[in-house]
């Protein structure tokens, strides 16, 4: 190395004076000597022969030089259970200690606190509780959500999501109702054979549309305060939860990046906003197929659709067959962000009668402003649900309306946001509702 450097230096531009060049070379050689000595000491202390890099001359990679002895890594035991381990220090690379130990549990949390004020002075007509259309203005503790991930091996992982939601009937009844509902929102054990084939069992958010599986109960993850009503928690239009088994995977497909989910499960319960956690209410399983692509040539774009079939036996309506078809287009960036979804639900009563089709959809767009350190993101959403009077399953459970939401999100840190929005709902045969909603949501 010294001879090469000396030779190169001899060919250096003539502008350098001989004296200064000689002095420079002497200094550099001295520095190299000290570094080589230091490397030798470190290698000796590690007790192994150095692996000197020599990239083949044929490659255009710049001629590799000996890798300096690595800075000693801080000795650490297996990292503790951490939140968001993209900031975690990995295990030390010392052979066996590098191997992951199982199970490896990680916990993350999501929560939100809300304020709502609207002109509603009566029942909200079927909107979900988390739409926050209440008769009185005031603060509301949103959901407190814990997310658990535990790798049981390199191929088996357990995911679960537990939510605590404030109850409107807290303290009433005998025994008095508790202040919060605890719900196992998701519990999934998945075996990853490879990228193309993964099989899992458990309770899911039904992969029947985009929003339901993109944001789950993490209010901080979604741009807006509330979910679209068609996929609202506690709502009935789409079956938000699904108990059963899923097979899923992805393939490059020539740059289209094709993804699929195929599932079989219990479907809706007797209360159609709920799934069959305890068991199916009939001997007909629900089936679903969800397909989408994320093409390389338009990075950020996702287009997909779903099909779902179930046999319904609701408490307050006649038994019926249910088919759901849905589609979505998403531009998953922030300049702009764009999400559009549509779903059609067909109900065919088993006893004959009118087959009805109910539709719902929304279009949401947002834009991360380039000012103020990109912390502001204004957004707008238009949504609607149409339930014909002939749909005896949905007629008294799902609101018919069209609504607009305009708001702004302010990301106060990388992990917390403030949101403020104005909403206006035009309801069928009921007065319009408008209101102001505020939220702070965060992950921890």
């Amino acid at each position, binding site marked *: 190395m010294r001879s090469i*450097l000396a030779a190169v230096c001899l060919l*250096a*531009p003539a502008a*350098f004076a001989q004296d200064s060049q000689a002095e420079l070379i002497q200094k*550099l050689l001295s520095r190299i000597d000290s*570094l080589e000595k*230091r490397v030798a000491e470190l290698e000796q202390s590690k007790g192994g022969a150095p*692996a*000197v*890099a020599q*990239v083949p001359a044929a*490659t*255009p*990679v*710049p*001629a*590799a030089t000996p*890798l300096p002895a*690595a*800075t000693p*890594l801080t000795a650490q035991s297996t990292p503790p259970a951490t939140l*968001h*381990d*993209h*900031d*975690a*220090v*990995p295990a030390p*690379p*010392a*052979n066996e200690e590098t191997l992951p130990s199982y199970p490896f549990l*990680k916990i*993350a949390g999501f929560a939100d606190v809300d304020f709502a004020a609207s002109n509603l002075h009566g029942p909200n007509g079927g909107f979900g509780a988390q739409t926050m259309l209440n008769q009185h203005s005031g603060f509301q503790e949103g959901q407190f959500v814990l*997310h658990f*991930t535990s*790798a049981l091996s*390199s191929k088996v*992982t357990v*995911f679960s999501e537990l939510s605590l939601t404030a109850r409107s009937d807290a303290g009433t009844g005998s025994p008095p109702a508790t202040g919060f509902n605890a719900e196992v929102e*998701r519990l*999934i054990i*998945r075996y990853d*054979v*490879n*990228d193309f084939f993964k099989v899992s069992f458990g309770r899911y958010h039904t992969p029947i549309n985009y929003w339901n599986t*993109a944001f*789950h109960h*993490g209010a901080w*993850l979604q741009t807006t305060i509330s979910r679209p009503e068609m996929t609202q928690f506690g709502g009935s239009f789409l079956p938000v939860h699904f108990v059963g088994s899923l097979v899923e995977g*992805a393939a*490059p497909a020539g740059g289209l*990046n094709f993804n699929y989910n195929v599932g079989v499960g219990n479907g809706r319960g007797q209360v159609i906003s709920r799934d069959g956690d305890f068991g199916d209410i009939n001997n007909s399983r629900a089936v679903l197929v969800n397909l989408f692509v*994320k093409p*390389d040539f338009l990075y950020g774009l996702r287009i997909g659709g779903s099909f779902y079939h179930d046999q319904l036996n609701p408490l307050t309506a006649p038994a019926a067959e249910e088919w759901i078809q849905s589609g979505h287009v998403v531009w998953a960036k*922030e300049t702009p962000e764009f999400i559009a979804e549509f779903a059609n639900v067909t109900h065919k009563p088993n006893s004959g009668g009118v087959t009805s089709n109910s539709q719902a959809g929304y279009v949401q767009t947002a834009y991360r402003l380039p000012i103020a350190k*990109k912390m502001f993101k204004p957004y707008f959403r238009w949504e609607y649900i149409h339930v014909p009077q002939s749909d005896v399953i949905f007629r008294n459970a799902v609101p018919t309306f069209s609504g607009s939401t305009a708001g702004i999100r302010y*990301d106060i840190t*990388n*992990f917390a946001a403030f949101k403020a929005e104005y909403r206006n709902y035009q309801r069928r045969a009921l007065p319009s509702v408008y209101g102001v909603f505020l939220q702070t949501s965060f*992950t921890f």
Partner: protein
Amino acid sequence: MTLLNRRKFMVSALATLGVLPATAAAADVAIVVRPDTPVDSLSLGDLRRVFLGDRQFWSSNLRVTLLVRAPGAHERDVVLNTVYQMSEAQYRQYWIAKVFRAEASSAPKVVYSNEMAVELASSMPGALAFVDASMVPKSLKVLKINGVLPGDSKYPLK
């Protein structure tokens, strides 16, 4: 100043003086894996799929382990700008959401230096790291991206 930083300082100084070629000072970011990893070349789309956690296996028995430099590193900036096309905040939110959606069991591991990246990539089967191309040791394989290696004028990770 660490040994690596000293070395980079010297290389930079020599390049400034015209003693060494400029390419050695302004090195590309090399994507490296262990030699036994069954991949030699990736398109930028394939690489993005790996970095996004959409491709999680090199083969059925070998899972990808991503090693990502901590915030502030030039190599991280290059990957965020070129591969993810995300800001630092978007990157963090992306991986929080990815794990929350049960699409990945963990986010990439963070490494704090090129040496740490190299050492971990060398010792962990299936690991993929990105390092300063002038620091690639003999023990690791440099992947072609879009068919070219670091140093080529068409190499995308600059």
